[in-house]
């Protein structure tokens, strides 16, 4: 394992897309890893100027410690290994993640996992806005992978996602699952305005009744979707996560939508 410790707090954004198992493995030695370039504001600098770096990348594991809330683009396009972060972390974490694991013991800022196509992300704390969302104008959001968030998330969660699984254990903001093409979202706390707006297909599973459902969704009865049971036990078996018991074997109220689009998506609301 290689350990990075932030030497002192940074105030301006530090662009550190070099922090990924792929790039570290490519560099090889600690010496060469310390020389990888980062941008501090407009200044091109070396990673080693900001972090104390020790250990070896051979086993494909990176541990970063410190307040990284201004450090951006960590784990960009990473395809294997484990990246563990102890502390809050800045924007664009795990952009374009293709494989491996990203584990955060802290909070994550906006734009988590844009363009992700595979791998696992686990966040112990809260996540900002536009988590797993499509870039502006992009037709599709994430195309695969599993994202588990123990805390709450901001607005526009999973915008236009094409495939993959997102689990939020607490609240989600407005427009969660907007424009979802396919994939599954679990939101185990409150959800904001207009969940599933413009969704084509896909499933949004809610533990709590949302404050409102858009006019363009249609109520289509109550039922017991067995796949939810299978799905959550699969996730619990394979990932460090525990769903509320209420979800198991429960009946759900089902809303079909969004009929402004295909209308083949569904919002499932867990019944008591």
């Amino acid at each position, binding site marked *: 394992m290689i350990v990075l410790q932030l030497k002192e707090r940074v105030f301006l954004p530090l662009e550190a897309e070099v922090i990924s198992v792929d790039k570290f493995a490519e560099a090889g030695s600690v010496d060469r890893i310390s020389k990888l370039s980062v941008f501090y504001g407009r200044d091109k600098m070396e990673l080693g100027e900001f972090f104390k770096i020790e250990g070896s990348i051979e086993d494909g594991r990176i541990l970063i410690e410190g307040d990284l809330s201004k450090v951006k683009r960590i784990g960009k396009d990473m395809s294997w290994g484990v990246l563990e972060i102890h502390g809050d972390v800045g924007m664009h974490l795990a952009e374009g993640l293709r494989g491996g694991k990203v584990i955060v013991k802290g909070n994550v800022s*906006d*734009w988590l996992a844009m363009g992700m196509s595979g791998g696992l992300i686990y966040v112990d704390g809260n996540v900002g*806005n*536009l988590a797993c969302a499509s870039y502006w104008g992009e037709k599709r959001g994430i195309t695969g992978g599993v994202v588990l968030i123990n805390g709450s998330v*901001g*607005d*526009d969660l999973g915008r236009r996602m094409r495939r993959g699984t997102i689990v939020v254990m607490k609240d989600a903001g407005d427009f969660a699952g907007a424009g979802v093409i396919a994939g599954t979202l679990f939101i185990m706390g409150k959800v904001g305005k207009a969940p599933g707006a413009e969704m084509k297909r896909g499933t949004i599973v809610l533990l709590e009744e949302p404050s409102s459902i858009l006019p363009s969704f249609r109520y289509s009865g109550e039922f017991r979707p067995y796949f939810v049971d299978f799905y959550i036990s699969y996730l619990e078996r394979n990932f460090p996560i525990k769903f509320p018991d209420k979800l198991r074997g429960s009946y759900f109220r089902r809303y079909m939508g969004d009929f402004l689009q295909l209308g083949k998506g569904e919002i499932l609301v867990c019944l008591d």
Partner: protein
Amino acid sequence: MREFCLITGRTIKQGITLHDGKTTEVYRNEVGIVYLNGEDMEELGIIEGSSVLLKTDYGQVVVRAVKGDLPKGMAFMPYGPWANMLTSANTHGTGMPDLKGIKLYIYPACEEVWDWKRVLEEVKSVEG
């Protein structure tokens, strides 16, 4: 405590007095102002033209209360430094802060309507 919905926007007088200068008295008279529904004012015991203390989760300010053609429960303020003491800088990842539709609390005040210096002092003084 009753909750109001704060809407900010343009007014003609704000536009006109802007050109007198933002540090002038005329500008303060037209922009350091909140419009309220008449019935709401009566309920709150606020006299037309008197000072009110406005509070939101994001800050506070003292302005002049004036009756306006508004639905009950709504407060309207012209864009400007006074209204911005109350708005939220959270942009939800869009760049656009929450400038309309903010939860507002209204209290009668005996203080004079703040001038621009007092507004800037308030900006600096509050931590958080």
